């Protein structure tokens, strides 16, 4: 059981507990299940209201899957997602969970706050509060829909506004992202990459959500547009009181925009801390290797650190024990047997590594 021991669960706006998302692997003529891709494997994270939480890792680590599972685009295989539960209720839930008796009380609380088991109308209603901006604006916008319909659709589906009111809100949203009314009657392919991403942002924010997952939103656009978009994200966060989950493999971008950052590897969180502290002094061997691989735009500071050996293993059959142990040059016996828990080593800096305990 890897529960995060935190001083206060109070302020967490989104709290996941042992969230799992497995994808079945089928094989054979009758497509029997032969295994699971363990994309997200028992991740417990808390995201505070109003913060920008960065989630980094390389391809295949599960960060995108995590982001999509948290807002229920994907249905979790197991685990809980508590959204906007008042602090006293959260305390109660934690107490009941720890007491390991299955209780009626717990079930009732979960029914009310646990996103993972919502369905039907309840789920549809909560969707207006959580949205996602995708990586590639070319594929995330329907090429045969006009901008006004793309941005207006959430309002229609969630029955928030009709007719003139809807139009007004759409225009308002477009203005907020830097586009204008005359862009309403155009198709996505008539815009540049940066503008398309703005349309995608407008679509995500038009229902005035509280929580937005940003899935590599600047990876598909140019360097100069990147800065514009990051500035826009910051402005929108303060104007609309948003909470972000910023998923990215671009460590330098995450460094600039996030308040806290978590590093994922093969479906698990290996380290999590305040941004400055994490980047200055990563503790987990993988995080260290990761941060030292970032090319620094300053030729005077060329690194000659030996790069990380090997490649990321497949998430279908993760190595036993600590998942990083085959590539870790500091691995010891226990690393091959037991999975380390995520432990607070001070100042809300969490690491999952046997070498750093005690």
């Amino acid at each position: 059981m890897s529960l995060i021991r935190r001083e206060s669960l109070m302020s967490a706006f989104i709290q996941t507990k042992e969230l799992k998302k497995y994808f079945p692997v089928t094989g054979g003529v009758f497509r029997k299940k032969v295994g699971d891709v363990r994309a997200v494997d028992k991740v417990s994270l808390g995201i505070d209201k109003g913060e920008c939480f960065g989630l980094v890792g390389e391809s295949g680590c599960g960060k995108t899957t995590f982001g999509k599972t948290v807002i229920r685009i994907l249905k979790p295989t197991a685990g809980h997602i508590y959204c906007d539960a008042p602090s006293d209720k959260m305390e109660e839930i934690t107490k009941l969970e720890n007491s390991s008796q299955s209780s009626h009380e717990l079930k009732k609380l979960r029914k009310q706050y646990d996103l993972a088991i919502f369905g039907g109308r309840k789920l549809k209603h909560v969707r207006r509060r959580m949205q996602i901006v995708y990586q590639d604006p070319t594929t995330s916008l329907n090429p045969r829909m006009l901008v006004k319909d793309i941005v207006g659709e959430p309002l229609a589906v969630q029955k928030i506004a009709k007719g003139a009111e809807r139009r007004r809100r759409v225009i308002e949203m477009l203005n907020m992202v830097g586009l204008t009314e005359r862009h309403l009657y155009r198709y996505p392919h008539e815009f540049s990459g940066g503008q398309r991403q703005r349309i995608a942002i407008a679509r995500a924010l038009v229902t005035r959500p509280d929580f937005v997952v940003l899935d590599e939103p600047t990876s598909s656009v140019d360097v100069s547009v990147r800065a514009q978009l990051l500035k826009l994200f910051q402005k929108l966060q303060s104007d609309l009181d948003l909470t972000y989950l910023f998923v990215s493999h671009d460590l330098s971008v995450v460094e600039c925009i996030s308040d806290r950052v978590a590093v994922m590897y093969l479906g698990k969180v290996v380290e999590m801390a305040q941004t400055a502290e994490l980047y200055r002094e990563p503790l987990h061997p993988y995080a260290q290797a990761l941060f030292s691989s970032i090319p620094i735009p300053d030729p005077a500071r060329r690194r000659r650190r030996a790069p990380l050996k090997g490649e990321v293993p497949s998430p279908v059959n993760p190595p036993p024990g600590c998942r990083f142990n085959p590539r870790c040059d500091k691995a010891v016996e226990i690393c091959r047997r037991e999975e380390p828990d995520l432990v607070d080593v001070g100042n809300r800096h969490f690491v999952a590594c046997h070498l750093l305990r005690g």
Partner: protein
Amino acid sequence: MGPAVKELKFILSRVEQSPLSVAGIAIIVFYIALALLAPVLAPPPYGDPYMIPHERWFPTPQPPSSKHPFGTAEGQLDIYYGVVWGTRTAFRIGIWVVAVSLAIGLITGTISGYYGGVIDEVMMRFTDIIFAFPALILCMAVVAALGPGLDNVLLALVLVGWPFYTRLIRGEILRVKQEDYVEAAKAVGCSDLRVLVRHILPNSIYPVLIVATLDIGAVVLTAAALSFLGLGAPTGYADWGQMINYSQNWIWSAAGNPWQYWYVFIIPGLFIFTFVLGWNLLGDALRDVLDPTLRRR
């Protein structure tokens, strides 16, 4: 509607560039005109306009003359009248069969592709069954069971044709289903129906429409083959395939001059050929225009 007009202009310019496309469109336009003007070009003298008139009864076909511009077939059926009204029949066959097959295929293919799982498997087995038979043989068997007649031919063609559309649409839907914008629509809370109608279908239907236009020609050809085998329209009906069927005895007939009665089969044959060609070229043109990968924007 600025963007729609721009699209149209772009489409027209692409079409202009390819002479074959222009030819295809011209042919189809010609046939449409022919079909619409049939009552004017070949006024029906009595009764059912689709029954080709004949004044006399002798079996030998007569060559083209001032009275019968394309000559007469066996039984003095006027070939000119036959091919003109046959255009209407051809359109009726082609469009009806393709429309119904498309409709059935759309529904089954969409459900199959979108929901997957057991429904998909079962549906694919159904289509497999039909694909197992050679199309023409199956048509013949169905018509033989139901009895000859144009309506039964149409039914048989639909029966043989719908699985093709099912597979096609299912394939396209499988592709579109996993696009990000579909997922984004679901993330907003769109119902399945809305996702299908507003997002998936508009993006998957174009290749299918292209194939459908090509198919119109193919269907007419198959119907003609069935008529030739005697399973289609009754004798004297204005149907190109029927006319060729009826001219069986006169193809390469006369001892010294095999081409003596050429007008009996060449003329209807020519109409079939150019009709199918027109649709093929039109389908190609549509594909060139609508295929996003070939565009240079």
